[in-house]
């Protein structure tokens, strides 16, 4: 029988996908039966989506960049550099 500690570790370290089919099934079954492990797994997923919403999901302007001139600035600098070569 797989232990809670092993399940928690596999889930948090992204190693579930690289396991053999039987092991993955065993973990799925365990997650289905164990409320604490399933809570752990849900929370690990929620951490990811909350971080995505914080930085990735919001428009860049809201991440804290008021003007959309990032690319233009980079290109100006690059063209100066290219010419200087």
């Amino acid at each position, binding site marked *: 029988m797989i*232990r*809670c*500690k*092993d399940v*928690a*570790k596999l889930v*948090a*370290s*992204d*190693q579930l996908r690289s396991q053999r089919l039987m092991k993955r099934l065993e973990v799925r079954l365990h997650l289905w039966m164990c409320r*604490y*492990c399933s*809570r*752990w797994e849900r*929370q*690990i997923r*929620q*951490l*990811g989506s*909350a*971080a*995505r*919403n*914080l*930085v*990735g999901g919001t428009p*860049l302007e809201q*991440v*804290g*960049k008021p003007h959309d001139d*990032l*690319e233009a*600035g*980079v*290109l100006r*600098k*690059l*063209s100066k*550099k*290219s010419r200087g*070569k």
Partner: protein
Amino acid sequence: MSQATAMSSVSEMKAEFLVRLHQREPEALATVVQDHAKPLYRAARGLGFREEEAEDLVQDVFATFLERLDRFEGRSQVRTWLFGILHHKVMERRRDQYRDQQNDPIDEVFESRFDTHGNWMRPPQDLEQLLESQQIGEAIKHCLETLPTTQREVFVLREIEECETGEICKILGISITNLSVLIHRARNRLRECIEARGWRRAG
């Protein structure tokens, strides 16, 4: 079109683009900047750099990209190469941070949650309300600050940029085993921090 023909035309396109890049053709450079400047900026912000710092960092990444362009042979994707440069810049600027430690105290915190049989001794608290509330953004922001640089990078690349395992390993120059350890520590540290905040709020 057969799969082989399709693949060869894709690699021809890549080779052609690479030639244009090596010639420093402005349009090719502009394409790279348009495609990657925002994701790099977003990652830099996720790594805790302020707006101006993040913008400066992105400028710096592209400057280095241009300098080393001749060494780029197209074996990895442009994105991987650019994020690799970003990683080196971040490490330069965060010299005070520790590199991968063999022993991280967070491992003991994880161990302490289980008894000798591997059963939960200190199960995860119910954070449902906090995790689904608006406050979670602030909590994550605060708790990301507690992560050592490499752990934070791994977390940002995995969860925000949604990079595949192999790509993260290439960007950071680490093994898959090392990556598993780092992502495990990053998530544990974040979760512990959120739990402590949630607990304080409930108390």
